[in-house]
C-alpha cells in the first residue's frame, strides 16, 4: 500500500509563473446553454486587508447538473461541452470576478439533490494547504434542504451566499473573509 498522500505546501507568492497559463475567468462560451451569471468579490485577511496574491479555483456542474468528468482525453477543450473549471487570481485590491452559467442541482449523499452550488479552492502565500468552500445562491428554494448548508449554523450560512448586486440577478457578489466576525465557512472532507 502506498504511503499517505504527499504533504501539501504553500503556492507561495510567485504562483503566477506556473498557474497563469490556465487562468480561466470565462467558464462558458456563447453556445453553452444556461443562465448567465457573473460573480465578483474580494478576498480579505483577518485584519480586513485585501489579499492581492490569492488564486481561486472553481469546479461546478453545467446548467443541467452534470459534471464534465467524462471529457475525452483526446478531445479539445471548449466547444459545445461545458468544462466547469475556472482559475481566477485576485488583483491589487484583492478583487476577483468570473462569468459562468448557474449550475443545476446534483445528487447529494442522502438521496436528495443538493442545492445549486459552486466549489471553490483558495490558494495563497500563507496557506500551507488550500481552503475549500462553496458558493450558493441567495433565496434559491433548494437551499432549505441542502445537506451541506444544514451542517452550518444558520448565522454563518450567509457567508456562502452569492447576492444580487442592485437587484440584478445575473451580477452577484460573494466575498471571502479569512478570519473574524464575518469569517467565511470553510469545509473539510
Amino acid at each position: 500500500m502506498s504511503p499517505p498522500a504527499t504533504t501539501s505546501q504553500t503556492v507561495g507568492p510567485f504562483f503566477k509563473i506556473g498557474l497563469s497559463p490556465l487562468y480561466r475567468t470565462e467558464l462558458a462560451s456563447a453556445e453553452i446553454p444556461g443562465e448567465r451569471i457573473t460573480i465578483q468579490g474580494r478576498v480579505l485577511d483577518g485584519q480586513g486587508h485585501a489579499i492581492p496574491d490569492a488564486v481561486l479555483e472553481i469546479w461546478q456542474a453545467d446548467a443541467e447538473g452534470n459534471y464534465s468528468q467524462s471529457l475525452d482525453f483526446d478531445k479539445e477543450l471548449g466547444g459545445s461541452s461545458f468544462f466547469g473549471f475556472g482559475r481566477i487570481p485576485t488583483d491589487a485590491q484583492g478583487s476577483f470576478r468570473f462569468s459562468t452559467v448557474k449550475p443545476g442541482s446534483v445528487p447529494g449523499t442522502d438521496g436528495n439533490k443538493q442545492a445549486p452550488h459552486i466549489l471553490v479552492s483558495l490558494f495563497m502565500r500563507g496557506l500551507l494547504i488550500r481552503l475549500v468552500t462553496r458558493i450558493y445562491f441567495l433565496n434559491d428554494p433548494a437551499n432549505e434542504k441542502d445537506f451541506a448548508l444544514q451542517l452550518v449554523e444558520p448565522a454563518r450560512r450567509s457567508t456562502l451566499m452569492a447576492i444580487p448586486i442592485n437587484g440584478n440577478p445575473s451580477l452577484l457578489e460573494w466575498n471571502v473573509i479569512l478570519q473574524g466576525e464575518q469569517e467565511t465557512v470553510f469545509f473539510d472532507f
Partner: protein
Amino acid sequence: MEPLLPVRSIVSGTQPLHLHPPYVTSKHRSPAKPLIRLPQTISELTGPTFPRDIVKPGSFDLTRQRSGEPLGQRIVVSGRVMDEGDRPVPHTLIELWQANAAGRYLHERDQHDAPLDPNFTGFGQVLTDSEGRYTFVTIRPGEYPWRNHYNAWRPAHIHFSLFGPAFATRLVTQMYFPGDPLLAHDPIFNCVDDENARNRLISIFDWNCTIPEQALGYRFDIVLRGRDSSPFENRS
C-alpha cells in the same frame, strides 16, 4: 468511468493545519473557526481532467524555452504519481514553477537582488503517462532569502501542482533536494509532525534518471489522496 467512492481521510500529522505560527503569514490568513466536515459527494469526487492538447509539446523541458540555454546545473526530475490505494494516476496534469539558478523568480514581486536569466522562465507543464510517470528537464533552483524571520532563507525547491481524478485529490506541494542544510530551519518544510511525511518531500538522487555527461537525476514520487485498495477490486 470509475465509480465514485470517497477518498481516504487525511492521516493525522501528514498534512499541515492552516495555522502554523512559525510561518508568520499564516497567522492572518488562516481561519479562526473550525472547518466544517463534509461528506464527500459527486461535487468533490469529480474534477477537471485536462485533454492532451492542453500541454504544449516541449513544456517538460525548461532548458529549451528561449533562444539560449539557462545558466545553472542541468537536472532531470522524474517520478511517478500514485494514489493512496497504490494505483498509478495516468494522464494527469502537473504544473511546475521555480526560481532560476541564482534564486530569483521571473515575477514582478520578487525583489531579491539576484540576476534574472533571460533564458529561463521557470515554468513547466506535463501530463503523466499511462502509468503515472513524468519527467522534467530543468536547472537546479537557487536558495533565496525571505522575510519570515531574521536571516531566513528558503531551501532550494520546485513547486508542483497536480489535479488527479477529482476535486478532492487536488495537491500543491514543493519538492526539495537531498542534503540541503536549510531544510532543518524552514517553517514551510517543517509544517507537519510526521517525519516520514516531511522526508517524502525530499527528492532522491537517482542514477536511473541521470543522463551521462548531461544532467544529474532526481526522483520525486507523489501520492494523491485516493481510495483504500481492496482485495476484491479487480475480480469483477
